[in-house]
């Protein structure tokens, strides 16, 4: 090829460079047009991300570095106080800082509740998803419909329904007292347990749907193959079904954990304000406490925690894949 070009070029040495120059320019123009088209095609996505993602986030970020206004809102004075306040208490008179774990505790409890809710949802959601995935194809959609049916009503109303069930005079207590298992109503509502239950209930479909999607793709001949190769039922689950369902399980856990961590209505109503979660605390800062910068800072810290957790997971999962 190279020899060919040389042989052709040698009779008119001036012709060849001109040709390549024109070719180069045409290619550059083509590339420019390609870039422009790509930008145009991306524009709707970029605008959406900017308006609903970056813009509000920027506002929060800016607010978190300002001073609180007396009646809510902010004073446009730079201050890192909000972040200091998260960990320390400033003495009113001496201006000294002392460590204050109150907010950390709220974060810790939220983390535990969200993890518990994720685990609970997984415990209930996996068998449910497996059950649906093993139904005949015609009836699967009906089951999925039933699972998502509660979502047709508002979360607030569903949570009130939970309250009716858990109250001292609620369905559970009355039934148990009628049967004679207990004589006094059990304290069910306004406990961490009630919040946990409410979270599991609220976010269960987020666990069921991705796991179902993964299991639906599972080739059940693989299950038979494993069964044929001396695997007991439990080992079939552990060695074949779980690995295949893993992407769905991971997605489901993320989808339950993140909204669970920031949940607001559930802990507010079922926790009775006693067991605060991050969501309630942030709401308080924007409401009664009139400390918008601190509310913003808490929201950002929450976000940072979630992101760090996800990054660690992605790193870990990526490393494992590369090894295996």
């Amino acid at each position, binding site marked *: 090829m190279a020899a060919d070009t040389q042989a052709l070029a040698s009779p008119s040495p001036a012709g060849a460079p001109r040709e390549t120059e024109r070719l180069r320019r045409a290619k550059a123009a083509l590339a420019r047009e390609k870039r422009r088209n790509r930008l145009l095609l991306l524009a709707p996505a970029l605008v959406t991300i900017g308006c609903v993602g970056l813009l509000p986030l920027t506002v929060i970020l800016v607010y978190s570095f300002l001073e609180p206004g007396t009646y809510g809102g902010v004073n446009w004075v730079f201050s890192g106080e909000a972040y200091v306040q998260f960990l320390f208490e400033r003495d009113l008179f001496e201006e000294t800082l002392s460590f204050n774990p109150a907010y950390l505790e709220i974060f810790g409890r939220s983390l535990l509740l969200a993890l518990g809710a994720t685990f609970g949802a997984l415990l209930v959601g996996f068998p449910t998803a497996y059950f649906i995935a093993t139904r005949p194809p015609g009836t699967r959609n009906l089951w999925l419909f039933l699972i998502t049916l509660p979502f047709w009503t508002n979360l607030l109303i569903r949570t009130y329904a939970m309250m009716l069930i858990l109250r001292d005079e609620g369905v559970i207590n009355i039934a148990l007292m009628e049967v004679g298992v207990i004589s006094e109503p059990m304290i069910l509502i306004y406990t961490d347990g009630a919040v946990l239950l409410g979270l599991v209930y609220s976010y269960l479909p987020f666990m069921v749907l991705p796991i179902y999607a993964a299991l639906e793709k599972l*080739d059940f*001949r*693989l299950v*038979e*193959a*494993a*069964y*044929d*190769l*001396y*695997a*007991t039922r439990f*080992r079939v689950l552990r*060695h*074949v079904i779980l*690995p*295949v369902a893993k992407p769905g399980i991971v997605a489901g856990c993320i989808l339950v954990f993140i909204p669970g961590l920031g949940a607001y209505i559930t802990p507010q109503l079922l926790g009775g304000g006693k067991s605060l979660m991050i969501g309630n605390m942030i709401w308080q800062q924007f409401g009664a406490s009139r400390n918008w910068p601190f509310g913003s800072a808490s929201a950002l810290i929450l976000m940072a925690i979630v992101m760090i957790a996800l990054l660690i997971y992605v790193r870990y999962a990526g490393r494992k894949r590369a090894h295996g």
Partner: protein
Amino acid sequence: MTGQETGEATAAVEIRRVSKIFGAGSERQVVALDDVGVTIRDNEFFTLLGPSGCGKTTLLRLIAGFEQPTAGEILLFGSHLEGLPPHRRPVNTVFQQYALFPHMTVAENIGFGLLMQGRPKPEIEETVTRMLALVRMEALAGRRTDQLSGGQQQRVALARALAPHPKVLLLDEPLSALDLKLRKEMQIELKRLQHETGITFIFVTHDQEEALTMSDRIAVMSDGAILQVGTPRQIYDHPARRFVADFIGEINILPAELTEIHGETARVRLASGQERTARLPEGSVEAGRVNVAIRPEHVRLGSPDGAALTGRVRNIVYFGTGTHYHLELEGVADAGGPAAAGGAFTVELQNRLGGADEHAVGERLGVLVEDGTLQVLCD
């Protein structure tokens, strides 16, 4: 159901009067197997041959334990399998679509059965290495199975099923997804594997050529029943039933009159009035109207004078090793013979190097039928 020989060899699998009805009692019940009985010997390459939907897979699944028989019993080396789940049967299956575990490497797939049996690690590693060598896949041990070609996946599926050294290996149309060239290669490979491992193979196919080339014995199935069991030669040369004759190879079927029976043979009178000796199938055949079958390559063409059958050449098909002469027989169509055949008769002649067609279209010829080449059919 014609258990032809009563061999001295031990029985690997005994199927005793097994029936399988899906959705029994419901509107849409399907009789997949109807009173099937057959004995498969130890160390045998046994083939279940039949058209799609005749119950081959169902029979394999009953042996593997994925389904329970509606009636009858299955014995493995003399012991009953009833109630034993698949993971407790020393039987392994090579599935039609391979069903390799996508989240495991080739080596992990092959070692899976041994791992589940709780064998010690060094033993597993050693067996996996041996199996990889057996199916010539050493170089790909660490690959994921979705990075393999069809033929390679096939080999892994074989190695995976062979690794725990089952007493019986079940193969459900393992070659049907491969292209022709690869299929021929794998046929030879499978025979070699069966020979080297000494494991009883029960092989399912709907391809009669595959069955003939590979099997020690064949069971021809139709509509949930086994019609005939025998060596490839027995099945090909002496089909007992109309279905078997039609299903395997090309064959001519003629109406005839059965006049005398002498043990295994009989005299039959053809449409031309000539009589020939024919083989009788097992089971009861009575004198009177019967169908007889004869292979295109077992007859010759000659002068019409005094021939057993006469007819005109309708067309000539050259296919390399031989030539087919399609004749229109005289006096057959109105003799109340098989309506579908309508007097059509095929003769196959071997081609010789530099030879030319020996006959022309439209020529009137005689078909020379020798004693013993005709086979009487049951139905």
